[in-house]
Protein backbone atom coordinates (compact mmCIF):
# COMPACT_ATOMS: atom_id res chain seq x y z
CA UNK A 1 0.00 0.00 0.00
CA UNK A 2 2.74 2.39 1.06
CA UNK A 3 4.44 1.93 -2.29
CA UNK A 4 1.29 2.85 -4.18
CA UNK A 5 0.75 6.02 -2.16
CA UNK A 6 4.38 6.95 -2.64
CA UNK A 7 4.18 6.41 -6.39
CA UNK A 8 1.02 8.44 -6.65
CA UNK A 9 2.64 11.26 -4.71
CA UNK A 10 5.82 11.26 -6.78
CA UNK A 11 3.76 11.05 -9.95
CA UNK A 12 1.57 13.99 -9.11
CA UNK A 13 4.56 16.01 -7.94
CA UNK A 14 6.30 15.41 -11.26
CA UNK A 15 3.18 16.29 -13.23
CA UNK A 16 2.80 19.51 -11.26
CA UNK A 17 6.44 20.33 -11.86
CA UNK A 18 6.10 19.70 -15.58
CA UNK A 19 2.98 21.84 -15.77
CA UNK A 20 4.64 24.62 -13.80
CA UNK A 21 7.70 24.63 -16.03
CA UNK A 22 6.25 24.24 -19.48
CA UNK A 23 4.21 27.38 -20.21
CA UNK A 24 6.54 29.89 -18.60
CA UNK A 25 9.75 28.87 -20.37
CA UNK A 26 10.48 30.04 -23.91
CA UNK A 27 11.34 27.20 -26.24
CA UNK A 28 15.07 26.84 -26.66
CA UNK A 29 16.47 26.30 -30.13
CA UNK A 30 19.97 26.45 -31.52
CA UNK A 31 20.59 27.72 -35.02
CA UNK A 32 23.86 26.81 -36.73
CA UNK A 33 25.34 28.93 -39.52
CA UNK A 34 28.71 29.61 -41.09
CA UNK A 35 30.50 32.97 -40.92
CA UNK A 36 28.70 34.57 -43.88
CA UNK A 37 25.93 37.13 -44.24
CA UNK A 38 23.43 34.53 -45.48
CA UNK A 39 21.88 33.83 -42.08
CA UNK A 40 21.64 37.57 -41.37
CA UNK A 41 17.87 37.26 -40.86
CA UNK A 42 18.43 34.89 -37.93
CA UNK A 43 21.21 37.12 -36.55
CA UNK A 44 18.90 40.13 -36.70
CA UNK A 45 16.06 38.14 -35.15
CA UNK A 46 18.36 37.34 -32.21
CA UNK A 47 19.73 40.86 -31.84
CA UNK A 48 16.40 42.66 -32.26
CA UNK A 49 14.60 40.28 -29.91
CA UNK A 50 12.27 39.00 -32.64
CA UNK A 51 12.67 35.37 -31.63
CA UNK A 52 11.95 36.32 -28.03
CA UNK A 53 8.89 38.24 -29.15
CA UNK A 54 7.55 35.06 -30.74
CA UNK A 55 8.36 32.97 -27.69
CA UNK A 56 11.59 31.39 -28.84
CA UNK A 57 14.81 31.33 -26.87
CA UNK A 58 17.14 31.10 -29.85
CA UNK A 59 20.91 30.88 -29.77
CA UNK A 60 23.17 30.96 -32.82
CA UNK A 61 26.10 28.58 -33.16
CA UNK A 62 29.03 29.43 -35.44
CA UNK A 63 29.90 26.41 -37.59
CA UNK A 64 33.25 26.26 -39.37
CA UNK A 65 32.40 24.27 -42.49
CA UNK A 66 28.99 24.35 -44.13
CA UNK A 67 29.03 20.65 -45.01
CA UNK A 68 29.05 19.80 -41.27
CA UNK A 69 25.62 21.37 -40.83
CA UNK A 70 23.47 18.34 -41.88
CA UNK A 71 25.27 16.08 -39.38
CA UNK A 72 24.94 18.73 -36.69
CA UNK A 73 21.19 18.91 -37.32
CA UNK A 74 20.76 15.14 -37.22
CA UNK A 75 22.66 14.85 -33.94
CA UNK A 76 20.33 17.52 -32.52
CA UNK A 77 23.31 19.74 -31.66
CA UNK A 78 21.42 22.38 -33.57
CA UNK A 79 17.74 22.14 -34.39
CA UNK A 80 17.88 24.50 -37.35
CA UNK A 81 20.85 25.07 -39.62
CA UNK A 82 21.73 27.16 -42.65
CA UNK A 83 23.16 24.76 -45.25
CA UNK A 84 23.83 25.98 -48.78
CA UNK A 85 21.47 24.62 -51.41
CA UNK A 86 24.18 22.27 -52.66
CA UNK A 87 25.03 20.89 -49.21
CA UNK A 88 21.34 20.43 -48.37
CA UNK A 89 20.49 18.65 -51.63
CA UNK A 90 23.53 16.38 -51.45
CA UNK A 91 22.68 15.46 -47.86
CA UNK A 92 19.04 14.79 -48.77
CA UNK A 93 20.18 12.79 -51.80
CA UNK A 94 22.51 10.82 -49.55
CA UNK A 95 19.55 9.76 -47.42
CA UNK A 96 19.65 12.24 -44.54
CA UNK A 97 16.04 13.11 -43.75
CA UNK A 98 16.26 16.90 -43.80
CA UNK A 99 13.54 19.38 -44.60
CA UNK A 100 13.74 23.09 -45.44
CA UNK A 101 11.72 25.24 -43.05
CA UNK A 102 12.31 28.82 -44.26
CA UNK A 103 14.33 30.83 -46.75
CA UNK A 104 17.51 32.64 -45.73
CA UNK A 105 19.33 34.23 -48.67
CA UNK A 106 18.78 34.23 -52.43
CA UNK A 107 20.89 35.23 -55.37
CA UNK A 108 20.08 38.65 -56.81
CA UNK A 109 21.96 41.27 -58.79
CA UNK A 110 23.89 42.53 -55.77
CA UNK A 111 25.01 39.11 -54.56
CA UNK A 112 25.74 37.91 -58.10
CA UNK A 113 27.87 40.99 -58.78
CA UNK A 114 29.83 40.27 -55.62
CA UNK A 115 30.94 36.88 -56.93
CA UNK A 116 34.00 36.59 -59.16
CA UNK A 117 36.74 34.35 -60.44
CA UNK A 118 39.79 36.31 -59.34
CA UNK A 119 42.89 35.70 -61.46
CA UNK A 120 46.46 36.17 -60.27
CA UNK A 121 48.92 38.55 -61.93
CA UNK A 122 50.59 37.00 -64.93
CA UNK A 123 47.53 35.08 -66.08
CA UNK A 124 45.28 36.61 -68.74
CA UNK A 125 41.67 35.56 -69.06
CA UNK A 126 39.75 37.01 -71.98
CA UNK A 127 36.94 34.47 -72.04
CA UNK A 128 35.72 31.22 -70.47
CA UNK A 129 37.93 29.13 -72.77
CA UNK A 130 41.05 30.66 -71.18
CA UNK A 131 40.33 28.80 -67.94
CA UNK A 132 41.27 25.54 -69.71
CA UNK A 133 44.34 23.94 -68.13
CA UNK A 134 44.34 26.40 -65.23
CA UNK A 135 44.46 25.57 -61.55
CA UNK A 136 41.40 27.09 -59.92
CA UNK A 137 40.83 27.29 -56.17
CA UNK A 138 37.25 26.89 -54.91
CA UNK A 139 36.17 27.26 -51.26
CA UNK A 140 34.93 23.70 -51.51
CA UNK A 141 34.58 21.13 -54.28
CA UNK A 142 30.85 20.77 -54.90
CA UNK A 143 30.23 23.93 -52.86
CA UNK A 144 27.97 26.78 -53.98
CA UNK A 145 30.58 28.83 -55.89
CA UNK A 146 32.13 25.77 -57.50
CA UNK A 147 28.79 24.42 -58.79
CA UNK A 148 27.88 27.86 -60.16
CA UNK A 149 31.23 28.21 -61.91
CA UNK A 150 30.99 24.75 -63.48
CA UNK A 151 27.44 25.57 -64.64
CA UNK A 152 28.79 28.76 -66.24
CA UNK A 153 31.62 26.84 -67.96
CA UNK A 154 29.17 24.30 -69.36
CA UNK A 155 26.89 27.06 -70.65
CA UNK A 156 29.91 28.62 -72.36
CA UNK A 157 30.90 25.32 -73.93
CA UNK A 158 34.01 24.72 -71.84
CA UNK A 159 34.56 21.21 -70.48
CA UNK A 160 34.95 21.54 -66.67
CA UNK A 161 37.23 18.49 -66.73
CA UNK A 162 39.85 20.59 -68.52
CA UNK A 163 40.25 22.64 -65.32
CA UNK A 164 42.18 21.54 -62.29
CA UNK A 165 40.02 22.43 -59.25
CA UNK A 166 41.54 22.52 -55.78
CA UNK A 167 40.13 23.60 -52.42
CA UNK A 168 41.24 26.97 -51.05
CA UNK A 169 39.40 28.42 -48.07
CA UNK A 170 38.35 32.09 -48.16
CA UNK A 171 40.85 33.37 -45.57
CA UNK A 172 43.79 31.76 -47.40
CA UNK A 173 42.78 32.89 -50.92
CA UNK A 174 44.76 36.13 -50.99
CA UNK A 175 47.97 34.43 -49.87
CA UNK A 176 47.49 31.48 -52.24
CA UNK A 177 46.92 33.82 -55.21
CA UNK A 178 49.93 35.89 -54.19
CA UNK A 179 52.24 32.90 -53.94
CA UNK A 180 51.02 31.60 -57.30
CA UNK A 181 49.71 28.40 -55.70
CA UNK A 182 46.64 28.65 -57.93
CA UNK A 183 45.92 30.61 -61.11
CA UNK A 184 42.49 31.79 -60.01
CA UNK A 185 40.12 31.54 -57.06
CA UNK A 186 36.33 31.44 -56.99
CA UNK A 187 35.49 34.08 -54.44
CA UNK A 188 33.17 36.89 -53.43
CA UNK A 189 33.23 40.24 -51.70
CA UNK A 190 34.92 41.48 -49.57
CA UNK A 191 37.76 39.27 -50.81
CA UNK A 192 37.57 40.52 -54.42
CA UNK A 193 38.03 44.11 -53.28
CA UNK A 194 40.78 43.26 -50.81
CA UNK A 195 42.77 41.32 -53.39
CA UNK A 196 42.22 44.00 -56.05
CA UNK A 197 43.40 46.72 -53.66
CA UNK A 198 46.49 44.69 -52.78
CA UNK A 199 47.30 44.42 -56.53
CA UNK A 200 47.28 40.64 -56.41
CA UNK A 201 45.50 40.26 -59.74
CA UNK A 202 42.29 41.02 -61.60
CA UNK A 203 38.73 39.80 -61.92
CA UNK A 204 38.76 37.15 -64.65
CA UNK A 205 35.03 36.48 -64.84
CA UNK A 206 31.81 37.62 -63.20
CA UNK A 207 30.25 34.23 -63.73
CA UNK A 208 27.37 34.61 -61.28
CA UNK A 209 26.35 37.94 -62.81
CA UNK A 210 26.35 36.29 -66.25
CA UNK A 211 24.21 33.42 -64.98
CA UNK A 212 21.89 35.98 -63.32
CA UNK A 213 19.94 33.48 -61.21
CA UNK A 214 17.54 34.17 -58.34
CA UNK A 215 17.56 30.80 -56.58
CA UNK A 216 18.32 30.39 -52.87
CA UNK A 217 21.92 30.43 -51.68
CA UNK A 218 21.27 29.28 -48.13
CA UNK A 219 18.02 28.31 -46.43
CA UNK A 220 17.04 27.19 -42.96
CA UNK A 221 16.68 23.44 -42.62
CA UNK A 222 15.81 21.00 -39.85
CA UNK A 223 15.43 17.26 -39.48
CA UNK A 224 12.02 16.11 -40.67
CA UNK A 225 11.44 14.32 -37.37
CA UNK A 226 12.05 17.47 -35.32
CA UNK A 227 10.08 19.73 -37.66
CA UNK A 228 7.06 17.44 -37.64
CA UNK A 229 7.15 17.09 -33.88
CA UNK A 230 7.46 20.85 -33.32
CA UNK A 231 5.13 22.54 -35.81
CA UNK A 232 4.50 25.43 -33.40
CA UNK A 233 8.21 26.14 -33.01
CA UNK A 234 8.68 26.13 -36.77
CA UNK A 235 5.75 28.54 -37.08
CA UNK A 236 7.30 30.92 -34.55
CA UNK A 237 10.68 30.63 -36.24
CA UNK A 238 9.17 31.47 -39.63
CA UNK A 239 7.31 34.47 -38.18
CA UNK A 240 10.48 35.88 -36.61
CA UNK A 241 12.52 35.33 -39.80
CA UNK A 242 9.80 36.98 -41.90
CA UNK A 243 10.00 40.06 -39.66
CA UNK A 244 13.81 40.09 -39.68
CA UNK A 245 14.32 39.76 -43.44
CA UNK A 246 13.16 43.32 -44.34
CA UNK A 247 15.52 44.70 -41.71
CA UNK A 248 18.43 42.84 -43.34
CA UNK A 249 17.48 44.21 -46.76
CA UNK A 250 16.74 47.79 -45.70
CA UNK A 251 18.78 48.64 -42.63
CA UNK A 252 22.45 48.18 -43.54
CA UNK A 253 23.70 49.45 -40.17
CA UNK A 254 21.66 47.00 -38.11
CA UNK A 255 22.46 44.15 -40.48
CA UNK A 256 26.20 44.90 -40.46
CA UNK A 257 26.26 45.10 -36.67
CA UNK A 258 24.46 41.76 -36.33
CA UNK A 259 26.75 40.08 -38.90
CA UNK A 260 29.90 41.47 -37.27
CA UNK A 261 28.69 40.28 -33.88
CA UNK A 262 28.01 36.72 -35.02
CA UNK A 263 30.96 36.21 -37.40
CA UNK A 264 33.34 38.25 -35.16
CA UNK A 265 34.59 39.96 -38.33
CA UNK A 266 35.68 43.58 -37.86
CA UNK A 267 32.67 45.88 -38.31
CA UNK A 268 34.48 48.10 -40.83
CA UNK A 269 35.10 45.10 -43.04
CA UNK A 270 31.50 43.89 -42.81
CA UNK A 271 30.19 47.34 -43.68
CA UNK A 272 32.07 47.29 -47.00
CA UNK A 273 29.85 44.64 -48.54
CA UNK A 274 26.09 44.45 -48.97
CA UNK A 275 24.70 41.45 -47.15
CA UNK A 276 23.13 38.80 -49.37
CA UNK A 277 19.45 39.46 -50.03
CA UNK A 278 17.23 37.92 -47.36
CA UNK A 279 14.11 36.11 -48.61
CA UNK A 280 12.10 34.31 -45.95
CA UNK A 281 9.78 32.47 -48.35
CA UNK A 282 11.04 29.31 -49.99
CA UNK A 283 9.21 27.64 -52.87
CA UNK A 284 9.75 24.15 -54.28
CA UNK A 285 10.41 25.42 -57.80
CA UNK A 286 13.36 27.43 -56.48
CA UNK A 287 15.10 24.16 -55.69
CA UNK A 288 14.28 22.66 -59.09
CA UNK A 289 17.04 24.62 -60.83
CA UNK A 290 19.61 23.47 -58.28
CA UNK A 291 18.52 19.84 -58.59
CA UNK A 292 18.76 20.10 -62.36
CA UNK A 293 22.22 21.72 -62.28
CA UNK A 294 23.56 19.30 -59.70
CA UNK A 295 22.17 16.27 -61.53
CA UNK A 296 23.91 17.38 -64.74
CA UNK A 297 27.13 17.72 -62.75
CA UNK A 298 26.55 14.17 -61.47
CA UNK A 299 26.42 15.38 -57.87
CA UNK A 300 23.09 13.70 -57.16
CA UNK A 301 22.48 9.97 -57.46
CA UNK A 302 18.77 9.53 -56.92
CA UNK A 303 15.52 11.29 -57.66
CA UNK A 304 14.64 13.97 -55.13
CA UNK A 305 10.96 14.72 -54.54
CA UNK A 306 10.68 18.50 -54.67
CA UNK A 307 7.48 18.60 -52.67
CA UNK A 308 8.98 16.65 -49.80
CA UNK A 309 12.05 18.84 -49.42
CA UNK A 310 10.18 21.84 -48.06
CA UNK A 311 7.96 21.67 -44.98
CA UNK A 312 4.40 22.87 -45.60
Amino acid at each position, binding site marked *: MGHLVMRALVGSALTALALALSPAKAEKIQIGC*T*ATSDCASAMIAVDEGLFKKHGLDAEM*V*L*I*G*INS*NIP*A*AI*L*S*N*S*IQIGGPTSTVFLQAADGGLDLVAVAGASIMNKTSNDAIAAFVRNGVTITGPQDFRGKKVGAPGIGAFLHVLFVKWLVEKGVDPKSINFVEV*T*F*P*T*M*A*DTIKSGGVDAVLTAEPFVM*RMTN*ANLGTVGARYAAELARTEPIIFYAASREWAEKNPETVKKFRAAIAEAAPIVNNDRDKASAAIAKF*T*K*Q*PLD*LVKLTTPNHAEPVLKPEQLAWWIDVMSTQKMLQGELDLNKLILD
Partner: protein
Amino acid sequence: MSMPERLKPLLLPLAALLAFEAAMRLAAVQSDSLAPPSAIALALAGALTDGSLLIATRDTLASAFAGLALGGAIGLALGIALGLSHILNRLMEVTIEAIRPIPSVALLPIALIALGFGYRMEIAIVAFACVWPVLIMTRAAVGGIEPRLIEVARVLRLTQLDRVRKIVIPAALPRIFLAFRLAAGIALIVAVTVEIAINPLGLGAGIMTAQQALRPDLMLAYLVWIGVTGFVLNAALMAAQTTLFGRAALTGDGA
Protein backbone atom coordinates in the same frame (compact mmCIF):
# COMPACT_ATOMS: atom_id res chain seq x y z
CA MET B 1 79.24 43.05 -22.44
CA SER B 2 78.23 41.07 -19.39
CA MET B 3 75.11 39.23 -20.20
CA PRO B 4 73.61 36.63 -17.92
CA GLU B 5 74.23 33.23 -19.43
CA ARG B 6 70.56 32.33 -19.15
CA LEU B 7 69.51 35.05 -21.58
CA LYS B 8 71.82 33.93 -24.35
CA PRO B 9 69.56 31.16 -25.70
CA LEU B 10 66.79 33.73 -26.09
CA LEU B 11 68.84 35.89 -28.46
CA LEU B 12 68.17 33.91 -31.61
CA PRO B 13 64.36 33.66 -31.27
CA LEU B 14 64.19 37.33 -30.25
CA ALA B 15 66.24 38.40 -33.25
CA ALA B 16 64.04 36.26 -35.51
CA LEU B 17 60.91 37.89 -34.08
CA LEU B 18 62.34 41.38 -34.59
CA ALA B 19 63.39 40.55 -38.14
CA PHE B 20 59.89 39.17 -38.84
CA GLU B 21 58.29 42.29 -37.38
CA ALA B 22 60.55 44.53 -39.47
CA ALA B 23 59.92 42.55 -42.63
CA MET B 24 56.14 42.64 -42.14
CA ARG B 25 56.20 46.39 -41.56
CA LEU B 26 58.70 47.37 -44.26
CA ALA B 27 57.04 45.29 -46.95
CA ALA B 28 53.60 46.46 -45.74
CA VAL B 29 52.35 42.90 -46.09
CA GLN B 30 48.58 42.61 -46.28
CA SER B 31 47.77 39.05 -45.41
CA ASP B 32 44.86 37.08 -44.01
CA SER B 33 47.13 34.41 -42.59
CA LEU B 34 50.18 36.28 -41.26
CA ALA B 35 50.50 39.16 -38.81
CA PRO B 36 53.45 40.99 -37.23
CA PRO B 37 54.48 39.73 -33.76
CA SER B 38 53.45 43.01 -32.12
CA ALA B 39 49.88 42.62 -33.43
CA ILE B 40 49.84 39.01 -32.26
CA ALA B 41 50.98 40.08 -28.78
CA LEU B 42 48.25 42.73 -28.67
CA ALA B 43 45.60 40.25 -29.79
CA LEU B 44 46.83 37.77 -27.17
CA ALA B 45 46.60 40.41 -24.45
CA GLY B 46 43.12 41.37 -25.65
CA ALA B 47 41.86 37.79 -25.70
CA LEU B 48 43.34 37.19 -22.24
CA THR B 49 41.70 40.27 -20.73
CA ASP B 50 38.24 39.70 -22.19
CA GLY B 51 38.30 36.16 -20.83
CA SER B 52 37.56 34.43 -24.15
CA LEU B 53 40.96 32.77 -24.27
CA LEU B 54 40.69 31.46 -20.72
CA ILE B 55 37.22 30.03 -21.32
CA ALA B 56 38.48 28.36 -24.50
CA THR B 57 41.49 26.97 -22.60
CA ARG B 58 39.19 25.62 -19.89
CA ASP B 59 36.97 23.91 -22.49
CA THR B 60 39.90 22.34 -24.30
CA LEU B 61 41.72 21.18 -21.18
CA ALA B 62 38.52 19.84 -19.59
CA SER B 63 37.81 17.73 -22.69
CA ALA B 64 41.44 16.66 -23.02
CA PHE B 65 41.73 15.60 -19.37
CA ALA B 66 38.33 13.90 -19.25
CA GLY B 67 39.25 11.99 -22.40
CA LEU B 68 42.67 11.17 -20.95
CA ALA B 69 41.09 9.91 -17.72
CA LEU B 70 38.53 7.77 -19.55
CA GLY B 71 40.87 6.45 -22.23
CA GLY B 72 43.71 6.05 -19.73
CA ALA B 73 41.50 4.02 -17.36
CA ILE B 74 40.38 1.72 -20.16
CA GLY B 75 43.95 1.39 -21.45
CA LEU B 76 45.27 0.72 -17.96
CA ALA B 77 42.69 -1.97 -17.17
CA LEU B 78 43.18 -3.70 -20.53
CA GLY B 79 46.96 -3.28 -20.34
CA ILE B 80 47.16 -4.95 -16.91
CA ALA B 81 44.82 -7.76 -17.95
CA LEU B 82 46.73 -8.41 -21.17
CA GLY B 83 50.10 -8.10 -19.44
CA LEU B 84 49.15 -10.69 -16.85
CA SER B 85 47.44 -13.21 -19.08
CA HIS B 86 49.26 -14.61 -22.08
CA ILE B 87 46.14 -16.31 -23.34
CA LEU B 88 44.05 -13.14 -23.23
CA ASN B 89 46.86 -11.23 -24.90
CA ARG B 90 47.07 -13.68 -27.80
CA LEU B 91 43.27 -13.74 -28.14
CA MET B 92 42.96 -9.97 -28.27
CA GLU B 93 46.00 -9.25 -30.42
CA VAL B 94 44.26 -9.25 -33.81
CA THR B 95 41.34 -7.18 -32.54
CA ILE B 96 43.58 -4.57 -30.95
CA GLU B 97 45.96 -4.33 -33.87
CA ALA B 98 42.98 -3.93 -36.20
CA ILE B 99 41.38 -1.08 -34.24
CA ARG B 100 44.51 0.69 -33.03
CA PRO B 101 45.70 2.10 -36.37
CA ILE B 102 42.39 3.92 -37.00
CA PRO B 103 43.25 7.63 -36.76
CA SER B 104 41.03 9.00 -34.00
CA VAL B 105 40.09 11.99 -36.14
CA ALA B 106 38.71 9.66 -38.80
CA LEU B 107 35.91 8.83 -36.34
CA LEU B 108 34.70 12.44 -36.39
CA PRO B 109 31.85 12.10 -38.92
CA ILE B 110 30.38 9.14 -37.02
CA ALA B 111 30.96 10.81 -33.66
CA LEU B 112 29.22 13.97 -34.84
CA ILE B 113 26.07 12.12 -35.89
CA ALA B 114 26.08 9.86 -32.82
CA LEU B 115 27.04 12.35 -30.12
CA GLY B 116 26.62 15.84 -31.58
CA PHE B 117 28.68 18.90 -30.84
CA GLY B 118 30.08 19.43 -27.40
CA TYR B 119 32.20 17.86 -24.70
CA ARG B 120 30.84 14.33 -25.13
CA MET B 121 32.03 13.91 -28.71
CA GLU B 122 35.42 15.46 -28.00
CA ILE B 123 35.94 13.36 -24.87
CA ALA B 124 35.02 10.19 -26.77
CA ILE B 125 37.53 10.90 -29.55
CA VAL B 126 40.29 11.89 -27.11
CA ALA B 127 39.60 8.77 -25.05
CA PHE B 128 39.89 6.59 -28.15
CA ALA B 129 43.26 8.14 -28.95
CA CYS B 130 44.53 7.77 -25.36
CA VAL B 131 43.60 4.11 -24.87
CA TRP B 132 46.36 2.78 -27.12
CA PRO B 133 49.59 4.29 -25.77
CA VAL B 134 48.50 3.53 -22.20
CA LEU B 135 47.38 0.01 -23.10
CA ILE B 136 50.54 -0.90 -24.95
CA MET B 137 52.99 0.60 -22.48
CA THR B 138 51.12 -0.82 -19.50
CA ARG B 139 51.02 -4.26 -21.11
CA ALA B 140 54.78 -4.08 -21.72
CA ALA B 141 55.43 -2.76 -18.20
CA VAL B 142 53.35 -5.50 -16.57
CA GLY B 143 54.81 -8.16 -18.84
CA GLY B 144 58.30 -6.99 -17.97
CA ILE B 145 57.92 -7.19 -14.20
CA GLU B 146 60.68 -9.11 -12.49
CA PRO B 147 59.39 -12.74 -12.43
CA ARG B 148 60.58 -13.19 -8.85
CA LEU B 149 58.05 -10.57 -7.71
CA ILE B 150 55.28 -12.64 -9.25
CA GLU B 151 56.73 -15.71 -7.56
CA VAL B 152 56.63 -13.90 -4.24
CA ALA B 153 52.99 -13.10 -4.83
CA ARG B 154 52.34 -16.77 -5.50
CA VAL B 155 54.20 -17.88 -2.38
CA LEU B 156 52.23 -15.40 -0.32
CA ARG B 157 49.04 -16.80 -1.90
CA LEU B 158 47.80 -13.33 -2.76
CA THR B 159 44.43 -13.13 -4.48
CA GLN B 160 44.41 -11.93 -8.10
CA LEU B 161 43.18 -8.49 -6.96
CA ASP B 162 45.83 -8.18 -4.25
CA ARG B 163 48.48 -9.34 -6.67
CA VAL B 164 47.58 -6.49 -9.03
CA ARG B 165 47.19 -3.97 -6.23
CA LYS B 166 50.27 -4.83 -4.14
CA ILE B 167 52.78 -6.12 -6.67
CA VAL B 168 51.94 -5.38 -10.30
CA ILE B 169 50.87 -1.75 -10.18
CA PRO B 170 53.62 -0.55 -7.82
CA ALA B 171 56.27 -2.34 -9.87
CA ALA B 172 55.01 -0.99 -13.18
CA LEU B 173 53.95 2.44 -11.94
CA PRO B 174 56.84 4.57 -13.24
CA ARG B 175 56.34 3.25 -16.77
CA ILE B 176 52.57 3.57 -16.48
CA PHE B 177 53.02 7.20 -15.50
CA LEU B 178 55.29 7.69 -18.49
CA ALA B 179 52.49 6.26 -20.65
CA PHE B 180 50.05 8.75 -19.15
CA ARG B 181 52.46 11.60 -19.80
CA LEU B 182 52.72 10.67 -23.47
CA ALA B 183 48.94 10.18 -23.64
CA ALA B 184 48.43 13.65 -22.14
CA GLY B 185 50.34 15.18 -25.04
CA ILE B 186 48.25 13.17 -27.48
CA ALA B 187 45.06 14.22 -25.65
CA LEU B 188 45.82 17.91 -26.12
CA ILE B 189 46.67 17.46 -29.81
CA VAL B 190 43.55 15.42 -30.51
CA ALA B 191 41.28 17.79 -28.53
CA VAL B 192 42.50 20.81 -30.50
CA THR B 193 42.22 18.90 -33.79
CA VAL B 194 38.63 17.90 -33.06
CA GLU B 195 37.84 21.54 -32.33
CA ILE B 196 39.50 22.75 -35.51
CA ALA B 197 37.67 20.19 -37.60
CA ILE B 198 34.16 20.20 -36.14
CA ASN B 199 33.50 21.03 -32.51
CA PRO B 200 32.52 24.68 -31.92
CA LEU B 201 34.27 25.09 -28.56
CA GLY B 202 37.73 25.49 -27.11
CA LEU B 203 41.05 26.69 -28.50
CA GLY B 204 40.78 24.92 -31.86
CA ALA B 205 37.41 26.53 -32.58
CA GLY B 206 38.95 29.83 -31.47
CA ILE B 207 41.63 29.49 -34.17
CA MET B 208 39.04 28.70 -36.83
CA THR B 209 36.71 31.52 -35.78
CA ALA B 210 39.58 34.02 -35.81
CA GLN B 211 40.67 32.82 -39.24
CA GLN B 212 37.17 33.14 -40.69
CA ALA B 213 36.76 36.50 -39.01
CA LEU B 214 39.87 37.56 -40.99
CA ARG B 215 41.82 38.21 -37.80
CA PRO B 216 45.21 36.55 -38.48
CA ASP B 217 46.65 38.32 -35.41
CA LEU B 218 44.09 36.65 -33.14
CA MET B 219 44.45 33.34 -34.97
CA LEU B 220 48.21 33.33 -34.41
CA ALA B 221 47.69 34.49 -30.83
CA TYR B 222 45.62 31.34 -30.26
CA LEU B 223 48.37 29.31 -31.89
CA VAL B 224 51.01 30.82 -29.59
CA TRP B 225 48.75 30.22 -26.59
CA ILE B 226 48.23 26.56 -27.53
CA GLY B 227 52.00 26.23 -27.67
CA VAL B 228 52.31 27.79 -24.23
CA THR B 229 49.58 25.52 -22.86
CA GLY B 230 51.29 22.44 -24.27
CA PHE B 231 54.64 23.55 -22.88
CA VAL B 232 53.25 24.19 -19.39
CA LEU B 233 51.34 20.91 -19.40
CA ASN B 234 54.42 18.94 -20.38
CA ALA B 235 56.62 20.78 -17.86
CA ALA B 236 54.10 20.08 -15.09
CA LEU B 237 53.90 16.39 -15.97
CA MET B 238 57.70 16.11 -16.18
CA ALA B 239 58.03 17.76 -12.78
CA ALA B 240 55.41 15.44 -11.32
CA GLN B 241 57.19 12.44 -12.80
CA THR B 242 60.57 13.35 -11.36
CA THR B 243 59.11 14.24 -7.96
CA LEU B 244 57.03 11.10 -7.73
CA PHE B 245 59.46 8.57 -9.09
CA GLY B 246 62.89 10.18 -8.97
CA ARG B 247 65.55 8.30 -10.87
CA ALA B 248 63.22 5.42 -11.60
CA ALA B 249 61.28 7.70 -13.92
CA LEU B 250 64.31 8.34 -16.06
CA THR B 251 65.20 4.69 -16.62
CA GLY B 252 61.56 3.74 -16.95
CA ASP B 253 62.28 0.65 -14.85
CA GLY B 254 60.69 0.57 -11.44
CA ALA B 255 61.65 -2.92 -10.36
